[in-house]
């Protein structure tokens, strides 16, 4: 890895470490050894997060997420990955301003196909991505207006196919830019209702023909209703007109309906139910097509017999058959003696992967922990299984 990359990582890590003693600070670190049919390897990860309030009006946030991996995650997995974020938020009476910069570094990245429309280049190796974001919001008692803009620049090394040798030949580094910006407003009325409108535009500046240009104009109606002291109901209906080459006529107008019910069953048990339906009204406004359904239920129980709230159980299910995204998942952690906890988890995605894990952890003051975890992944595609053993810690200041 080149020296500038090391410097960038250090630029994100050092301020976090230097200022850690002063404020809220989170450090998650660990490594795991894995084994599957084809190979063995090691993964390591390190996540740092720091937040500081200079004044009640100004807040600064720094985070650094570093991971190095031999594991197979997906065809596009990068073996070295660092994402750093520097963000600031300024609030004064009814005005909010948020700005952030993110930097992502890819190391030992695989050759990936380049976007469908990109000259005669065949593939790319990702190097680095810069993302900057600016958002402002002005709020009155019943009306809020907001505007946001983002810019993304991806640096990569392109490869072109040499037709004489049929080999990929490395080219000079290049970059692609995408810009996203939009404005919106929300009006609250009749205590529980709100109506919103927004216009968002996106352009891929690298494609002159506008293949990656997209304009969304949306309007929505939402209600938030406290059914009782223990349950809360939210519902919304949104229609978005999407104009862009990537959006087919049948998907021109997206109708998104969302209902969420949250219930506190007792002091220790709570749950929520969410249903989202995505449908499309075709450009000719004659046909409605179904895109996807998403039904999700989740329950969470915290044991009243553990004063540190470290003993818990959660169980959830997700049903989204159209996109083969069904899942069953659960996790339980129980205090054995003093700070020693045992836990287990499962994540079943019948069309994608099944995962099981067992965990032994030691908690010390607060919610800090060191843990040893064993897991098994069974991928439903490619007849592949992976076992891993992890050692890690989660520390909070």
């Amino acid at each position, binding site marked *: 890895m080149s020296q500038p990359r090391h410097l960038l990582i250090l630029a994100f890590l050092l301020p976090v470490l230097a200022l850690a003693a002063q404020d809220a600070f989170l450090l998650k670190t660990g490594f795991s050894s894995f084994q599957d049919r084809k190979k063995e390897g090691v993964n390591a990860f390190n996540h740092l997060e720091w937040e500081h309030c200079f004044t009640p009006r100004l807040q600064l946030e720094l985070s650094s*997420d570093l991971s190095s991996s031999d594991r197979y*995650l*997906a*065809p*596009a997995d*990068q073996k070295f990955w660092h*994402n750093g974020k520097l963000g600031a938020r300024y609030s004064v009476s009814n005005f909010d301003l948020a700005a*952030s910069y*993110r930097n*992502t570094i890819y190391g030992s990245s695989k050759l*990936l*196909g380049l*976007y*469908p429309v990109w000259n005669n280049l065949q593939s790319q190796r990702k190097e680095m*991505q810069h*993302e900057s974001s600016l*958002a402002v919001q002005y709020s009155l008692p019943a009306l809020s207006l907001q505007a*946001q803009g*983002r810019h993304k620049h991806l640096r990569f090394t392109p490869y072109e196919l040499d037709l004489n040798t049929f080999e990929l030949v490395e080219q000079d580094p290049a970059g692609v830019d*995408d810009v*996203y910006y939009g404005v919106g407003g929300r009006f609250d009325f*009749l*205590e*529980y*209702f709100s109506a919103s409108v927004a216009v968002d535009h*996106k352009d*891929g500046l690298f494609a002159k023909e506008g293949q*990656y240009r*997209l304009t969304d104009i949306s309007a929505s*109606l939402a*209600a938030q*209703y406290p059914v009782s002291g223990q349950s809360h*109901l939210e519902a919304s209906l949104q229609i978005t007109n999407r104009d*862009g*080459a*990537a959006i*087919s006529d049948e*998907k021109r107008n997206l*109708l998104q*309906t969302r*209902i969420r019910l949250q219930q506190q069953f007792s002091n220790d048990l709570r749950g929520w139910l*969410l249903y*989202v*339906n995505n*449908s*499309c009204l075709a450009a000719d406004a004659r046909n*409605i*097509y*179904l*895109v*996807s*359904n*998403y039904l*999700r239920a989740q329950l969470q129980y915290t044991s009243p017999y553990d004063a540190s709230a470290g003993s818990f159980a959660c169980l959830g299910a997700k049903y989204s058959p*159209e*996109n*083969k*995204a069904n*899942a069953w998942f659960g996790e339980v952690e129980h205090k054995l003696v003093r700070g020693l906890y045992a836990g287990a988890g499962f994540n079943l*995605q019948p069309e994608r992967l099944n995962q099981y894990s067992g965990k032994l952890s030691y908690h010390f003051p607060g919610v800090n922990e060191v843990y040893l975890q064993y897991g098994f992944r069974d991928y439903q595609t490619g007849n592949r299984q992976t076992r891993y053993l992890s050692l890690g810690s989660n520390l909070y200041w």
Partner: protein
Amino acid sequence: MKRSSAVLIIVLVVVLVVAIACKRVSITEYHIDSSSCNGCGECLRVCPNDAILYNHLGKAEIDQSKCTQCGECVAVCPNHAIY
């Protein structure tokens, strides 16, 4: 006010029933449940088309103009927020 909420819920249910009964689109389209997304970035790592980015709230968002519906992000999301 309770009556207004009831009316709204009935309208939504009717829309849902109509939407469920209609024809399927020919192309898959993935979305992110922003209330379940914790911004961990796992989906960004595995996206081969650079189609996922963070919005100004720190949540992942799919750029539908670049997404090729490969579905790699669905399996890796630790919060099952992609559908």
